[in-house]
């Protein structure tokens, strides 16, 4: 049972990160290679805020806003002129973001490890089926579940969601209806970067903060997105849970086979469902 719980917490953390990536790809058609760097920036900004204020909850609110602003500026000034061009330009640009953010973090915080701790209310543990599980992990599961429901609701059930989805399918038509498509795109990119930052803050108390922390997790993140289907939130949830459970069960029985098991999952998906488990049906007007 504890394995399931731990698997859920790993999966939820992956989902939080992958959701932003899949959102930006699904709605803007941009593969944002810098998503992991924005996750790292979120964690470092939270570290700084906690150092100044001692309040984790404040950091969880403020850090995503700051990183979201950074995302908005990057999108407005650099990504926006490239929407009509070949995807290679966007890939090169987001690679540039990685170098920029890495260098900024190196200059601002140095190369030493940094650390975040769980907030005082979640620093304890709970005994579940003979295993000790931290309260913080239970919080991650609850927080991830709430966020995934909220995200799903906004995209599928609200007017904002309808506009955003319409702009991703036929931006010219949406523009003719008097909606500022540029602003919609900026909004989506900001939401994606905010999700990356949120996952950075949430991961902070579990992992050391260091330069390069983005590289190790972004690969997992892309696997989630590919397994679930590029641009699909439901797919991201399922992909993240599958990888989370594979990791947890793998650790239980054969820790040294975990990566092989995870990649096997990816390969099997690509063989039988190359479009991902939840492929997006694109309807053109």
């Amino acid at each position: 049972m504890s394995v399931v719980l731990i698997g859920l917490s790993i999966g939820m953390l992956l989902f939080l990160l992958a959701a932003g990536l899949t959102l930006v790809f699904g709605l803007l058609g941009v593969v944002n290679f810098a998503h992991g760097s924005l996750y790292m920036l979120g964690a470092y900004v939270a570290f700084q805020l906690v150092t100044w204020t001692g309040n984790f909850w404040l950091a969880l609110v403020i850090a995503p806003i700051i990183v979201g602003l950074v995302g908005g500026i990057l999108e407005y000034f650099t990504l926006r002129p490239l929407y009509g061009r070949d995807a290679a330009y966007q890939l090169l640009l987001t690679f540039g973001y990685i170098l920029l953010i890495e260098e900024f973090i190196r200059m601002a915080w140095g190369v030493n490890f940094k650390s975040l701790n769980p907030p005082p209310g979640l620093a304890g543990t709970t005994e579940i089926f003979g295993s000790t599980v931290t309260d913080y992990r239970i919080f991650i599961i609850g927080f991830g579940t709430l966020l995934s429901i909220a995200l799903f609701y906004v995209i599928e059930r609200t007017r904002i969601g309808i506009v955003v989805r319409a702009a991703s399918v036929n931006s010219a038509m949406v523009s003719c209806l008097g909606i500022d498509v540029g602003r919609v795109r900026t909004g989506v990119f900001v939401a994606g970067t905010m999700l990356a930052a949120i996952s950075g803050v949430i991961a902070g108390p579990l992992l050391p903060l260091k330069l390069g922390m983005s590289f190790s997790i972004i690969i997992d993140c892309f696997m989630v997105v590919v397994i679930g289907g590029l641009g699909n939130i439901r797919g991201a949830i399922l992909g993240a849970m599958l990888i989370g459970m594979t990791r947890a069960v793998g650790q239980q029985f054969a820790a040294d086979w975990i990566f092989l098991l995870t990649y096997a999952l990816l390969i099997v998906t690509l063989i039988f469902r190359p479009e991902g488990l939840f492929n997006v049906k694109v309807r053109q007007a």
Partner: protein
Amino acid sequence: MKFAVSLARALVGAAILLSQQTVHAQAPKDAFVIGGVVPLSGAYALLGTSMQKGADLAVEQRGKVLGKPVKALWEDSETKPQTSVQKANKLLAGGVSVLFGDGASGQTLAIMPVADQRKVPLIVTTSAADQITGSARNKYTFRTSNLAFMETRMAAEYVKKVGLKSVYVVAVDQPVGRDTWATMKASLTAMGVKVAGEDFAAIGSQDYSVIIDKVAKSGADGLFIVTTGADTITLLKQAGQVKLGNKVKIFGTGFLDDDAAMAVGPDVVGVKTVARYHFSYDTPTNKAFVEAYRKKYDEWPNAYAGHAFDGINWFMDVVEKTGSWDSEKWVAAFEGSTHTNSLFGPRQMRACDHQALGVGLWAEAVKGTAPQPALMLKVTDTFPPAGLFPDCPK
């Protein structure tokens, strides 16, 4: 035919250049140049930047070697073995007097044949793989820091001292993790200590919770860890959050330092480890070094900085004594030399494998008192060199 002639010309040209390089290494130069190949970016950036700081301080304090100014040139090996080789070749092409580096053992093993081929001494002050002074040793490579074997011996002594009955291991799934555990397992079996379980986790693992749960339920009274850097912090942080330290004694071989202890947080207190160096180690030379280092960098020196300072100083002492620019004489003089001014007390360079012999330090993570770091290592035991090192290779 045309291609064959061009190839032959290129080979002859390269041979002339190489031979000139060797002659240049023996002729007096305008400066004694140390070529540092260290990871200044990538996963081991912290190692490289610290090594650079320690070596730069040694160079600055020395000023001149053989009557000529001494200076250090730095190349970033990016924590990649292939880059290490490229950068080492670049420095050698520039005519450096000695090579210094690298960070990870894989990188050092990659540049060792380059130093050997170009007949330029290579000073290793961080990498701990046994092969460096074992199966892969060569005439021009000298290690002035710890090797994995001696650290495993110290960990086994700790098990004996505290009387652990059953040990669980969590090691990184790399040759160093498996080799260290194989040596340790043999020692534990000989002592009659039970192995409660073993897990090899991939480098860069993000989650150890299930493994930690297995350790807690295994009935082990000790957890032996063979990891480094971020893996150590992730594992200890997550173990600390479920208070695993209350159930088992956590220890390892050189897997923890002050920087990592700070990143783990208060739960690190009580964890035992080999300390490759510590600023609190009480020798007059170390006190002077720590003072100078803090004055220059406004921080406490870590193991990578301490060993870099010590190793570079040792080699410069040797070169000065030879009074010659002949690198063959430097190598001959370094073999069997004694470093009396070492930060660790007197140390000898073993001629048979070019491994420095010295004391081994065992430490515990404790709370520091200002101006020391809030969490740091404290040396609790010092092991004499006898019995710590492998026999000379035959």
